């Protein structure tokens, strides 16, 4: 996590996006709660989190569609609106309705006309993989096709930052793969790409940095591999007979947390296979052994709690 930020910081000191203590409240719900983060040029960043984690609100704040109650949002050193008017941001919204009764080409042409640094309409269509449906009416498209049209609107011009809110919603597996190939092309051209998703696999396959959002707070920030290791945490529990020698148990590899109460030992491990293997290596005889997966959210909460506990010691 620290390593990633350092690398990015050395390649460029000007963040593409800067959130400083940003909050947004709806009634009594804190959708975004004191969020601070920076995105750097050329990064492909996944905003990962379960539904209701505050992903869409975060993107809306970034794009100037919503105003923060507290804190500041910076895009290319200016306000979101100024960055959009300068043509530096292309965005695709999750529920972005389209103008109906017009053809795909007409809509994409409009997007090109509205961009200060537009690409050729034919190129935009080809890159989004919608040349075949160019003459079709927008309201006659399937869910996946409509997503591709939205993607075309987001990439109609030479923007420096592409923001995508759950872009593969409504796509089947092959459409998803094709979509991410297109997306990778965008990143390869040196653009900063930020996308929201609740699929860890997507974040893992595409992003070189993953931000995990939970209840409007940043829970983790690191490379996909780091996040994956954390999210891969599993829960191991077993009983031991007789007096328990705690020291070797606490020395087991890949432990995130360990809790020993009475004869029962509960462990959260980032590599359950290795931990269990080492456990038998201690020469003990664990009974009622259970190994269970933790959900993404649960895993992160557990890990954060463990880290907070460590820091307070």
């Amino acid at each position, binding site marked *: 996590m620290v390593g990633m930020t350092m690398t990015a910081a050395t390649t460029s000191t000007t963040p593409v996006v800067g959130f400083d203590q940003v909050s947004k409240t709806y009634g009594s719900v804190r959708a975004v709660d004191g969020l601070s983060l920076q995105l750097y040029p050329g990064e492909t960043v996944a905003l990962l989190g379960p539904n209701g984690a505050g992903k869409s609100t975060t993107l809306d704040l970034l*794009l*100037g*569609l*919503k*105003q923060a109650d507290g804190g500041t949002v910076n895009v290319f050193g200016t306000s979101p609106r100024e960055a*959009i*008017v300068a*043509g530096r*941001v*292309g*965005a695709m*919204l999750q*529920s*972005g*309705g*389209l*103008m109906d*009764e*017009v053809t795909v080409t*007409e*809509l994409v*042409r*409009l*997007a090109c*006309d*509205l*961009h*200060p640094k537009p690409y050729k309409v034919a190129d935009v269509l080809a890159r989004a993989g919608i040349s075949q449906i160019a003459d079709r009416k927008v309201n006659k498209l399937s869910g996946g096709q409509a997503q591709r049209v*939205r993607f075309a*609107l987001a990439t109609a011009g030479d923007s420096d930052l592409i923001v995508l809110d759950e872009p593969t919603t409504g796509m089947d597996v092959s459409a998803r793969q094709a979509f991410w190939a297109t997306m990778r092309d965008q990143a390869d051209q040196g653009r900063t790409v930020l996308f929201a998703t609740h699929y860890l696999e997507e974040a893992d396959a595409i992003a070189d940095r993953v931000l995990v959002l939970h209840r409007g707070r940043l829970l983790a920030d690191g490379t996909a591999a780091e996040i994956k290791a954390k999210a891969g945490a599993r829960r191991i529990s077993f009983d031991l007979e007789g007096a328990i020698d705690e020291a070797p148990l606490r020395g087991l590899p890949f432990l995130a947390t360990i809790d020993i109460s009475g004869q029962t030992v509960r462990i959260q491990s980032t590599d359950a296979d290795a931990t269990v293997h080492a456990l038998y290596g201690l020469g003990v005889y664990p009974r009622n052994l259970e190994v269970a997966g933790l959900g993404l959210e649960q895993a992160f909460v557990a890990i954060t709690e463990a880290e907070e506990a460590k820091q307070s010691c």
Partner: protein
Amino acid sequence: MLNTFATRALIKLELARALRNRKFLFFSVIYPSALFLLIAGNADSKTKIDGTGLTLPTYMMVSMASFGALTAVLMGNSERIAKERESGWVRQLRLTTLPGRGYVLAKTASAAVVSLPSIIIVFVVAAAVKDVRLDAWQWLALTGAIWAGSLVFAALGVAIGYLASGDAVRPITMITYFGLSMLGGLWMPTTTFPQWLQDIAKWLPTHAYAALGRSIEQSQTPAAQDIAILAVFFVLFAGGAAWLYRKDTLKA
């Protein structure tokens, strides 16, 4: 510079879409002329409408041209804005260089382009079928006055579009539309109304709108009261639309 270009690009597409929508074209372009023929069809060209000195076809021509323009701008704005607000298209447009007002402007401009033929077709039908004769300046002034006056109702359409949503927008639009058309005397002269209704009708923007056209037919200066009524309603509708628009922008 760019922003005008952006707005123009949207106007172009809005227009292409409006001209492709047969239902919309029928109601705003053909329907007023058909209604004119229906009402004025059997009237001879001699009978005068009480207190105006105008024949029924001449009188109804202004009413129906006004009605057609009203249809085009009111319907064109209210339902589409409400629908596109709900679908998220308005949000998507806010992620472009298009200035906030550009969207409303494009809607109104494309509606105005449709309302112009609707006015002219009523005039052509009236002149060809019912022998309505006016001076050249009167034809031009009529076209200009009815076209410009329709802006009042375009603003109303925008306001309704930002006020209502979902299933509510159509009934609200229809009630406003028929209420203003009938009570304002676009379908029949208000002189046929009972006195109490006439007292209400004369304050309606549609009444002032049609009166404006009729004063041109009568070669008279438009009544100050009618111009004032239209101006006040325009400020009211446009102000309301601007306020509702800003509220919607903050909420989205």
